[in-house]
C-alpha cells in the first residue's frame, strides 16, 4: 500500500493549465525524486499535496494519502494532516522562517499546534531534541536564537526540524538545497537521507538538479511543462530512459563544451597582494571602527587567451575580489594591473584600461535597465571609447555583436522583458563584446540558468573565446561548470587563495583538505549517464 498516490492530477490557476494528468506514488521509507526545469510544475505538484495552492486554483484527479482523499478533505482535516503527517521543507531558508520568533518557539509551535495539551516546557524540550537530530546542537544553537543569527544552511536545518518534529509519514522537500553552498548541500542531503531511514518516512525530493537526486532517489519522475514525461528507477534511469527530453536533460547536465586548451602567452590581468577591508559598525560608542578583511593578500596572473576559474563558497571573498578587479571598489593594498597598467589610477578608474575589460553578471533579470532598448543596453560600453562609432559604423557594431551571440539585428529595437533568461544572458555577452574587450569577467554567469540553457551558453562562450581570442575570468560556486570551461582554477577560502593549478589536476588530485571536501561534495551523475 503506497503512502501517497497522486493519480491523474490536473491543476489550473485562473483557467491557465499548470499540471496535466500528473501521476506518481511515494512508498514509506522511499525517496521519490521529482525533476524538472523552471515552469515544469514540480513545485505546484508539492503544493497540491498539501493543498496550499494560490487562490483561484482548481484541481482534478485524486491525491490519496494514508486513506485520505486530500482533494476533497475539509480544511480542518488538512490542517490536522499538515505538519503532523506531512511535513514540508522549502527552497529559500532565508525567508521561510518568521524573523520575529526564536527558532525554539518556531519548532515547538509544530508540536503545540497538533498536541495542544503539551506544556510549553515539554514542547521546548522536544524542540531541542528535534534540533539536535537535525544536527544543530543546543550548546551552540540555543532555542533562544533568532533566524537572522544563523547561516542559510543552519536555517534550513531549523526548517527541517519544524517539518519532522512530529515524525511525519511523508516529507516533501522543494529544492531544499538550491540556495545553499555545495558542502552544505551535501550535508543537508545526508541529513534528509538519514531521517528517512531512521523514521521510515517517505520523502518527495523536488529539484532541478539531476545529479542531486540521482545519488539518493529510489524512484525518479521527470516533469516538463506540467506533465510527467518519464518515470524510472533512480539507479538505472540513465540506462532505461526513453523520452527525448530525459535524454537531453542527462546530456545537458554532464555537458562538456568542446574546447582546446590555450598555450601560455603574455599576462593580461595581474593581481598582486590585493587586500580589501570592510569597516564594520563600532562595537562600543567611542571605540575604533572594526575591520573585516574580505580579501587577504591575493595574487594571481591571468594570461591572454586563457580561461581561469575562481571558485569558493559564499562569503569566501570572491565577489569582493571581483568588484575590486572591475574597478568598482578601491583596495586597501596591493595592485591590480591590466596589460601592466593599474585599473585604479589615483582616485578615478582609468578608462583606457577599463575598456579592455567587461563583465557578465548572474541575474539575467537584474542586469538590464528595463526602460532601455537592446540597442541602448548593449552600446553602453561605448562610453569607454574616446571616439565612439557613429552612424553606419555604430549600426554595424551592434549587428555584429548581436549576430555573434546568436541573436538577430532586429532584436535591437526590443525591450528586455521580451526575452527569456537564456536570451538575456546572450544580450549581456553581446554587451561585453561590443567594444572588443579582451578580458570578460563572468560572475556566476550561468548559475541562474536551467541546465539545457546553461549548456548552450557554455558552448557559446567556448566558441566566442576561440573566434575572438577572449580571456575569461570565470567566477562560480558551481565546480562542475568551472571544470568544463577553464584551464586553471583558483580555490578561495576566507579571503585567501588556498589552492591553485591546472583544472584537471585540481579536480583529480586536490591537495588541500578544503579543496578535497569541496570536490567530494559535488553531486555526480552515475558513471556513463551522460554518454547518451
Amino acid at each position: 500500500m503506497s503512502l501517497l498516490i497522486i493519480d491523474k492530477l490536473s491543476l489550473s490557476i485562473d483557467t491557465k493549465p499548470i499540471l496535466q494528468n500528473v501521476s506518481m506514488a511515494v512508498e514509506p521509507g522511499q525517496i521519490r525524486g521529482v525533476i524538472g526545469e523552471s515552469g515544469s510544475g514540480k513545485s505546484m505538484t508539492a503544493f497540491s499535496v498539501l493543498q496550499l495552492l494560490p487562490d483561484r486554483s482548481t484541481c482534478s484527479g485524486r491525491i490519496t494519502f494514508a486513506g485520505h482523499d486530500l482533494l476533497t478533505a475539509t480544511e480542518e482535516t488538512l490542517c490536522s494532516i499538515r505538519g503532523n503527517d506531512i511535513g514540508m521543507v522549502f527552497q529559500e531558508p532565508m525567508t521561510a522562517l518568521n524573523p520575529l520568533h526564536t527558532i525554539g518557539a518556531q519548532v515547538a509551535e509544530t508540536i503545540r499546534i497538533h498536541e495542544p495539551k503539551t506544556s510549553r516546557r515539554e514542547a521546548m524540550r522536544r524542540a531541542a531534541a528535534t534540533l539536535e537530530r537535525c544536527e544543530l546542537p543546543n550548546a551552540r544553537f540555543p532555542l533562544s536564537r533568532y533566524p537572522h543569527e544563523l547561516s542559510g544552511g543552519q536555517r534550513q536545518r531549523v526548517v527541517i526540524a519544524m517539518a519532522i518534529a512530529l515524525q511525519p509519514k511523508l516529507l516533501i522537500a522543494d529544492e531544499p538545497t538550491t540556495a545553499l553552498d555545495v558542502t552544505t548541500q551535501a550535508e543537508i542531503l545526508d541529513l534528509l537521507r538519514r531521517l528517512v531511514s531512521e523514521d521510515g518516512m517517505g520523502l518527495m525530493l523536488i529539484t532541478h538538479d539531476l545529479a542531486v537526486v540521482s545519488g539518493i532517489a529510489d524512484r525518479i519522475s521527470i516533469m516538463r511543462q506540467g506533465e510527467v514525461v518519464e518515470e524510472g528507477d533512480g539507479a538505472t534511469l540513465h540506462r532505461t530512459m526513453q523520452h527525448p527530453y530525459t535524454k537531453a536533460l542527462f546530456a545537458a547536465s554532464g555537458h562538456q563544451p568542446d574546447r582546446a586548451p590555450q598555450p601560455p602567452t603574455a599576462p593580461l590581468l595581474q593581481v598582486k597582494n590585493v587586500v580589501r577591508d570592510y569597516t564594520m559598525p563600532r562595537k562600543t560608542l567611542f571605540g575604533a571602527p572594526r575591520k573585516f578583511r574580505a580579501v587577504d593578500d591575493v595574487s594571481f596572473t591571468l594570461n591572454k587567451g586563457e580561461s581561469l576559474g575562481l571558485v569558493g563558497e559564499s562569503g569566501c571573498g570572491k565577489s569582493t575580489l571581483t568588484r575590486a578587479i572591475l574597478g568598482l571598489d578601491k583596495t586597501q593594498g596591493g595592485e591590480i594591473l591590466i596589460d601592466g597598467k593599474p585599473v585604479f589610477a589615483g582616485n578615478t578608474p582609468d578608462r583606457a584600461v577599463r575598456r579592455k575589460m567587461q563583465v557578465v553578471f548572474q541575474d539575467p533579470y537584474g542586469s538590464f535597465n528595463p526602460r532601455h532598448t537592446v540597442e541602448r543596453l548593449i552600446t553602453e560600453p561605448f562610453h569607454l571609447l574616446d571616439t565612439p562609432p557613429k552612424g553606419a559604423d555604430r549600426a554595424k557594431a551592434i549587428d555584429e555583436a548581436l549576430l555573434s551571440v546568436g541573436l538577430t539585428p532586429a532584436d535591437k529595437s526590443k525591450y528586455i522583458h521580451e526575452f527569456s533568461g537564456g536570451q538575456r544572458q546572450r544580450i549581456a555577452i553581446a554587451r561585453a563584446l561590443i567594444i572588443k574587450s579582451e578580458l570578460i569577467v563572468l560572475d556566476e554567469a550561468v548559475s541562474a540558468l536551467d541546465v539545457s540553457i546553461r549548456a548552450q551558453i557554455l558552448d557559446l562562450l567556448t566558441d566566442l573565446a576561440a573566434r575572438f581570442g577572449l580571456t575569461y575570468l570565470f567566477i562560480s560556486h558551481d565546480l562542475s561548470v568551472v571544470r568544463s570551461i577553464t584551464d586553471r582554477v583558483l580555490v578561495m577560502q576566507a579571503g585567501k587563495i588556498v589552492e591553485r593549478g591546472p583544472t584537471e589536476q585540481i579536480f583529480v588530485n586536490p591537495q588541500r583538505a578544503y579543496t578535497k571536501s569541496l570536490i567530494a561534495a559535488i553531486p555526480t551523475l552515475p558513471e556513463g549517464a551522460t554518454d547518451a
Partner: protein
Amino acid sequence: MLRYALKRLQSLVISLVIASLVIFAAIEVIPGDPASFMLGFNAKPEAVEALRDQLGLNQSLIKRYFSWVSGLLTGNFGTSYTYRSPVSEIIGDRLWISLPLAVYALTLTVLIAFPAGIFAATRRGSRTDVAVMSVTQLGVAIPNFWFAILMVLLFSINLRWFSAGGFPGWENGFWPAIKALTLPAIALALPQASILARVMRSSLLDTLGQDYIRTSRAKGLTRRQALWRHALRNALIPVLTIIGLQFSFLLAGAIIIENVFYLPGLGRLVFQSISQRDLIVVESVVMLLVFAVILVNFTVDLAYAWVDPRLRARA
C-alpha cells in the same frame, strides 16, 4: 538593545539642537530687532529699549541662544509681554487641553483602524473589504475641520447632544471635560484612522504573502492562526512608522480643530500671540510642539526594536 537606544538618543539630541537653532533663527534673528517688531513701528523708543532690556536683546546672539536653551531646560520660558506672566504658566494651562486631545484622538485612531484594517485584509475582496476601503477613501479625503463643522451642525445645533464648543476645565470633573473633547477628538481621528486602516490592511496583505506564512501553514496552522501568530506582528512594523507620523499630524491638527470648538488650547494661544506679535510665546509653543514630535519619533524607534530582534542585534 542599550546600544541601539543610546544611538537613537544621540540622534534625538542632535535633532533637538538643530530644531532649536532653526526656531531661534526664525524668531530672533530674521526679523532684525524683535523688540521693535513686537511693539510695532510707531512705538516709543523708550518702550522699545525697555523691552529690549527685558528680553535681554542687548546681549550677543550666542549668549541669548544659550540663555534661551538653558531657560527651556529649567522650565523658564521667559515672560510674555502681552499676558505679563511667565510663558511656562500660560503654556502649562493650555497644554492640558491640547495634549489630552491629541492622545484621545490617537487612541480613537488606533481603536478604529486596527480592527478595520485587519478585518478588511482577512476578507480581501469581500463586501466588508470593499466597504472599509470605500469609507476610508472618503475619510482620507475629508478635511478634518470641515468634518468638525458638520458634526457641530448635526450633534450640537440640531440634536443638541453636545455643546457647540468651549471647555469646562478639568477641575469641574473628568467626564464633562472628556465630553467636551469628544467631538474634536472624533474629528481629528477619523481621517487619521482611515489612513491607518489602509496602511494596516496593505501591510497585512503584504505579510500574508511572505514565505514564512506558507511555512506556518505547512506546519498545520489555520489561516486565522497564521494571521494572529505570525502575520500581525510583522505587519506592525510599517504601521508603527505611520502612527509616529500621525501623532505629529494630530498635534498640528489639534491646533486647527481647537478653533472650530473654541477650545482654549495651544492653538488658540498661538494664533492670539501671532496677531499680538508676542514672539516669545510663539517661539516657545513651536519649540514645545517640535520637541513632542521628535520625542514621539524616538519612542517609535524604540518600539521598532521591541518588535524586531534584528534591530536589537544591529547597531
